[in-house]
């Protein structure tokens, strides 16, 4: 053990010999869990989906619920044409691959031959995700589900293709699922994406696309 570690730990143990009282709380409970106090998520599936849709709209993310994969393919093809997406970077996945390959452009699976420079030149990144949190409109991606760390952040557009049953009502349920799914073996990166990249650093005026994607699409296949 390093000297510094020993010394800091010693200081901590010494400092904590004097206990400090619990903070002044409004509630009486000694063990308070946060989830009960966070924003409402609705009682029914329809309400949860409505909430997700509202949240994504407020975040200026583009939300497209579709009936099946064919609709997803048609939708993204159309978007690609309108937006002139030519260099398509994607992560191989049952939902993502057919969509990426259908686009009229150069589809490149990052899984095959990763290159930072090539990723930087991509017009759009296509990924799947772990889950979607309706309560906040947050999309959880991981280094496993989303083609590493860069694919969901470096290209100027991020398109997420997911299944409707990946929607969880609230953050608490999402963490519960993370614990179950990954247990002691977390992917090296888990990231909640809550709307397209943004900044308010100049006069607190909102600008999208600070460093990450300027546009974020969520295509949800029923």
């Amino acid at each position, binding site marked *: 053990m390093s000297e510094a570690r020993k010394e800091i730990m010693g200081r901590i143990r010494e400092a904590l010999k004097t206990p400090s009282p619990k903070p002044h709380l409004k509630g009486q409970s000694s063990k308070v869990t*946060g989830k009960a106090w966070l924003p409402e998520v609705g009682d029914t599936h329809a309400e949860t989906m409505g909430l997700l849709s509202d949240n994504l709209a407020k975040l200026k993310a583009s939300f497209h619920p579709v009936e099946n994969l064919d609709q997803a393919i048609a939708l993204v093809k159309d978007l690609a044409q309108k937006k002139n997406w030519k260099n398509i970077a994607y992560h191989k996945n049952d939902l993502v691959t057919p969509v990426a390959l259908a686009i009229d452009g150069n589809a490149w699976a990052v899984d095959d031959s990763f290159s930072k420079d090539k990723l930087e030149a991509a017009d759009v990144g296509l990924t799947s995700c772990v889950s979607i949190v309706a309560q906040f409109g947050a999309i959880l991606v991981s280094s496993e589900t989303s083609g590493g760390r860069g694919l969901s952040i470096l290209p100027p557009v991020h398109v997420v293709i997911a299944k409707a049953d990946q929607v969880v009502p609230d953050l608490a349920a999402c963490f519960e699922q993370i614990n179950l799914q990954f247990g002691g073996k977390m992917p090296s990166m888990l990231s909640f994406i809550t709307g397209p990249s943004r900044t308010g650093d100049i006069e*607190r005026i909102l600008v999208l696309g600070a460093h990450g994607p300027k546009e974020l699409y969520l295509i949800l296949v029923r």
Partner: protein
Amino acid sequence: MSDSKSIFIKEATLTSADGEQRQFIRTALGGYYKNRDIYQARYRDWELARDAASLAKWSAVNNLAEVLEKFVAKFEANGGKVHWARDAAEARKIILDLVAKANATAVIKSKCMTTEEIHLNDALEKAGFGVVESDLGEFIQQLRGEAPYHFVFPCMHLKREAISELFTKHLGTAPTDSPEELTMIARRHLRKLYITADVGITGANFLVADTGQISITENEGNARLTAAMPRVHIALSGIEKVINTIDDLTVLLPMLATAGAGQPMTCYNTLYAGPKKPGELDGPEEFHLVLLDNARTQILADPEQRDSLHCIRCGACLNVCPIFKNIGGHAYGTTYQGPIGSVITPHLRGLKDWNHLSGASSLCGACTDACPVRIDLHHHLLQNRRNAAKVVPNLFDRVFHGSFNFVIQRPALFSLGGKVFRKTFGLLKHLPLPYLGTWLKSRDLPAIPQKSFREVWKDSKNV
């Protein structure tokens, strides 16, 4: 008077007289208030959520040794390497050594106040390593050679014209009055740097003990890029950032965003568990975490103010603070501005030189009400005043309050003193008396009454 105090007085005198700049700051914060209120209102119970957030931090801070040990074991099991720094110098040395060992030619940084606290950029530059701040606000401040104005909104004091001029001067870009275009200039400029940098340096908002992850909160995506592209990722964090479980983030992540920026959740909340794993496509080969004490254990040793280590650096206390809004962030001369800065700076840098910050408060308590983790901020300012009176005796204060107490212990003397004051006020107001003279420089007193309340009461025995 300490240097830091005389600088504070000088700066605050200038900035508090700048009505236009003060209005600019209030206008900039207007949108924050509006959104904060909207998103707080969506909570089923914001006050009970504060309880939960406060307890999450309290239980970690009050078991810091165990929780840290647990975190470190998990972090290293995930493949990361932990380094311990007793103070700023040690932290700088660790980071410089890591950067040198990586044969780094370029270093990119995402926003991290702890690196400001240890003056990392200066040290890197002196050692010959170019370092570029990637957060837009920090990038702008770095170009200006100026410290952040607000630890969450680093350049909120600047008008777009000033930023445009700055970019023209340093980046050779055409002038523009569009915040959007200014943002895109920075975006274009920094993009290649993420790819070419060998080392990425970030901070950490939370260290999650049960999973060994570090959690980073941001809006721009620059921290994501900083931790994705370079070969080596170095994170610097205070030891107090540790929390017990990943579930604690259920309440901490949204509250950090809502209290700090008026958002439901910030754009990116990212958990890192080790470097690139076998089978993963990208990410750093090495992941280092530097855990910094730098007087945090001194705060820990003060049970009365230990809760100031609960701080999640959301900046809510600054945003509501009338002192901050009227003197601005630079006047403080500290890494951490506003109420939390005034509470912890005397611990970090010495009560003797920094106790004036505790005095420079009307103790209005808006900060305490705004704090999502219930730090008793304004009462800590009061306690710092008490501590300062013991540690740094102020003769004037002692004589003044001693005399005042002598008078108020004697009702007849108090009554007489009041009478003399009232009868001679016409003369006194022209004298350069301490306190009274200062008051009268910018404010009147009401018409001085002939009789005090007690005299009228005694006369009438009734009303």
